[in-house]
């Protein structure tokens, strides 16, 4: 048993060294272009981190992986478009309304489709959340069609140049939002009684009833938070990417990879995983034909699952049979 | 004499972190005998079974099955070598009928796979017929042959236990490890179990049983081993053990708490 622990420790340290080496190599070999990649990578990475947090919220509360997480972000962006851009509602109000609607949808889906599945197998829940994702995406396609829509950046479009790399102001909003989100979520789950109770409930269903938190409430609360988080993230992200009915797929997949990389259920892990993934992706895209960029996430996903399923910062649990 | 020994348990120690669940446990089981392991709850009896069947690896010690060391083998490998166990909590296969559950017991003695069975080769067909026959006679042994086509998990509790027993017998084992087979059975059912097990013993089967029901233990065991806090504190015939002061203290000591 001790040897396995040592092996994991070595793995962790070598991964960290690997990442640092890659970054340093990029900077030294590619100079400011390399720095551009890293900066873009951090931006994209924060986006992944936000989605990853949504996964971790639901996972740490209910041990469920919500395949529809990306769709919450997509809906947030699309609703913001309809309400503020087309509807002319002031952005701050549009933001609140959009997030509210998606949160209600999330809570509603949990009650309607997830809660009744309490006793069912993990596979059943996976399939149901996939079904929900398909449903939401198809609904979005029906309502908004297939064309992407544009949402105005919060504070202007003009890119700033820092050390030879350009970055749009919206990226700072994303960074800032990520920080705020991590702090809020972390505090909720680690400093409040309810939050701690929810995490305890996920680890041990019997202990949960002692603490006074029912798994049913945990689940509902988790989905509500994840939906709100996902929606707001989607709105903050939308000016950088674009918003369309199918952005949820890639966001979801990459966000999930980031969550697994950082450690499912760990919020600092979600951030770490997201940033690492974003940077590695951007560097790969610069070096290798760009079509392979998306493969980075999936290769990382599989490597992590096979070698260290608990990710960088997660705790080992029953991942393998 | 050595060839008569089916199971040899040598100096088995099991440490979970700082806690020693089993300390230097040694005993052997001879062919054709029924040996019982008893002891207060938490004495380490199920842990012992988990080690014997390959679910857990001991911290130290050896397990010899028919002279071969089986420590480190997978459960299905140990099963193939003739040691089968039943579980404390019933682990019948959901969605499968009584006869199908019993037929799974034959898995370790049979080997035709996807291709042979997919194409229904004659050899696979003959194997299937043998499996059916073995399973049916196992069901007859425990009195379940009339309920063969019912769903296993729909049976009343006592008969589910019997089905587990039938499933184990189907594998035509050399030694049967029974983990509290009488748990939850009433007087009548325990009596049935007692005569079934004795019948098996008379047919040459070796049985190692962990049990709390003293009546059953006294009835059928040839020898009794008493565990307390992971150590053997007494061994001998049922009468010897019943009157052993250490054993009485171990049980009474717990009750006095």
């Amino acid at each position, binding site marked *: 048993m001790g040897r396995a622990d040592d092996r994991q420790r070595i793995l962790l340290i070598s991964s960290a060294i690997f990442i640092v080496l890659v970054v340093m190599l990029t900077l030294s070999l590619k100079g400011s272009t390399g720095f551009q990649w890293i900066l873009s990578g951090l931006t994209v990475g924060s986006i992944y981190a936000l989605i990853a947090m949504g996964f971790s919220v639901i996972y740490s509360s209910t*041990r469920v*992986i919500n395949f529809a997480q990306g769709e919450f972000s997509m809906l947030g962006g699309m609703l913001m478009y309809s309400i503020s851009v087309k509807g002319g509602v002031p952005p701050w109000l549009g933001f609140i309304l959009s997030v509210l609607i998606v949160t209600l949808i999330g809570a509603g889906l949990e009650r309607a*489709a997830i809660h009744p*599945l309490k006793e*069912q*197998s*993990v596979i059943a829940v996976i*399939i*149901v959340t*996939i*079904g*929900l*994702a398909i449903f939401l995406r*198809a*609904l979005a*396609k*029906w309502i908004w069609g297939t064309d992407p829509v544009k949402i105005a950046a919060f504070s202007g479009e003009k890119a700033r140049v820092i050390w030879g790399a350009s970055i749009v102001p919206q990226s700072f909003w994303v960074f800032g939002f990520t920080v705020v989100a991590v702090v809020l979520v972390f505090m909720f789950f680690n400093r409040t009684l309810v939050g701690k109770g929810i995490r305890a409930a996920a680890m041990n269903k019997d202990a949960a009833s002692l603490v006074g938190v029912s798994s049913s409430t945990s689940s509902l609360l988790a989905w509500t938070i994840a939906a709100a988080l996902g929606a707001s993230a989607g709105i903050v992200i939308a000016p950088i990417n674009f918003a369309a009915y199918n952005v949820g797929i890639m966001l979801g997949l990459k966000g*999930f*990879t980031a969550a697994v990389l950082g450690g499912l259920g760990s919020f600092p892990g979600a951030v770490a995983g997201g940033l690492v993934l974003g940077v590695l992706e951007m560097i790969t895209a610069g070096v290798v*034909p760009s*079509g392979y960029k998306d*493969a980075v*996430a*999936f290769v990382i*996903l*599989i490597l992590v*699952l*096979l070698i260290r*399923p608990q990710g960088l910062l997660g705790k080992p649990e029953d991942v*393998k*049979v | 004499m050595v060839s008569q020994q089916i199971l040899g348990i040598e100096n088995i120690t099991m440490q979970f972190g700082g806690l020693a669940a089993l300390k230097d446990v040694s005993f052997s089981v001879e062919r054709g005998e029924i040996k019982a392991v008893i002891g207060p709850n938490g004495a380490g009896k199920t842990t012992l079974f988990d080690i014997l*069947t390959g679910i857990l690896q001991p911290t130290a010690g050896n397990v010899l099955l028919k002279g071969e060391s089986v420590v480190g083998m*997978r*459960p*299905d490998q140990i*099963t193939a070598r003739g040691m089968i166990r039943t*579980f404390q909590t019933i*682990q019948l*296969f959901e*969605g*499968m009928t009584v*006869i199908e559950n019993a*037929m*799974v017991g*034959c*898995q370790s*003695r*049979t080997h*035709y796979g*996807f291709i042979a*069975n*997919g*194409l229904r080769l004659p050899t696979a067909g003959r*194997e*299937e017929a043998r499996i*059916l026959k073995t399973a049916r006679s196992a069901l007859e042994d425990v009195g379940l*042959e009339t309920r*063969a*086509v019912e769903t296993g998990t729909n049976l009343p509790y006592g008969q589910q236990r019997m089905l587990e027993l039938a*499933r184990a017998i189907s594998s035509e084992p050399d030694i049967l490890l029974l983990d509290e087979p009488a748990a939850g059975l009433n007087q009548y059912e325990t009596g049935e179990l007692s005569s079934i097990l004795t019948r098996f013993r008379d047919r040459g089967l070796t049985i190692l049983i962990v049990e709390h029901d003293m009546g059953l233990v006294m009835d059928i065991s040839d020898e009794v081993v008493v565990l307390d806090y992971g150590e053997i504190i007494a061994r001998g015939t049922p009468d010897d053990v019943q009157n052993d002061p250490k054993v009485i203290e171990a049980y009474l000591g717990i009750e006095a708490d």
Partner: protein
Amino acid sequence: MDSKVEKPALGEKRDYRNLLILTIFILLIPLWASPLPGDVLHLDIVNIMVLAGVYACAVIGLNLLVGYAGQISLGHAAFFGVGAYTTAILTCHYSWFPTWLGVLVGAALAGVIGWLVGVPVLRLKGNYLAMATLGLGEIAFILFTQLKGLTGGTVGIPQGIKVKVGEIPALSVFGFRFDTDIKFFFLVWAIVMLLMLLNINVIRSRVGRGLRALHSSEVAAEAMGVNTARYKTQVFVLSAVLAGLGGALFAHFERYISPESFTFSLSILFITMVVVGGMGNLWGGVVGVIVLTFLPQVIQAMPQWIPGLPSNLTNFSNYTLVLYGILLVIFMMFMPSGIAAGLSRGVYLGEKQFKRMRDRVRARKYEGH
């Protein structure tokens, strides 16, 4: 007493009889499919059934993996694609390469890849296995689009590759060309019925019991001598081979393939077919495939039954996707045994009724004497 245990418990004779009935019914489809109801419903039934047939190959295998063994794969479109691309590449780049061999090589290669990825990945549990297979499926898709020299990139085969071939060659076996819908229909469904025969044999054997045992309780199964790791790998490889077979047939039917045919959506479609058809049900694969291949076509054809519907209500692709999502959720929640369970219960009740009536007639005859 003997026969009572043998037949109902194992049910084989009943299964074979049902298979025979189904085979006859399906092989007669081209006779009655048009004029009625094909023309009336504006459906090209034979054509749709061919597609259903190639999908059925994949779904029968997937049902063994998901329904019986209790594992999951969200990337099976990859194996379907491997089969398709292998045969397309071989038969287009090398015009002498026999198409039937291309199909076999495609299926075999899918199996090999299934083995290579299955061994490490099947150690994972539930959620993690799902995500790993999803990731693998996506990687395969990316390779399909990026290895342009081999696969023709996003344009596909044959338009995207250098060799000047009009289309992927038609499947031909010993000189007989399967170049029409009807010919392919018979070929595909003969293959599917053969696969169903193998399916029945496997499920009613110790292998089938082993799979169901490991689905129910891996610990108990291992204790009974089921080598769970080996079974999981074998059933995974088998499902990969069958998916590859379906894909290869698909390539020779469509005569044109591109990565768009092998996306995550197809993997999900396969899973939906397994769930809706009936997980762990013998007929689940075939039922699910037929229902879900016809459903979008029926919806698309519906506007032609009712003239004058507004156009955005008739855009079928909107409906289909929403429908798939809802179906998946509802079936998983309320009817995991799928449609097939309902059907077989219907058949069983029908049988009972028939026997009762027959016995009554016999009794009356007897009394009459």
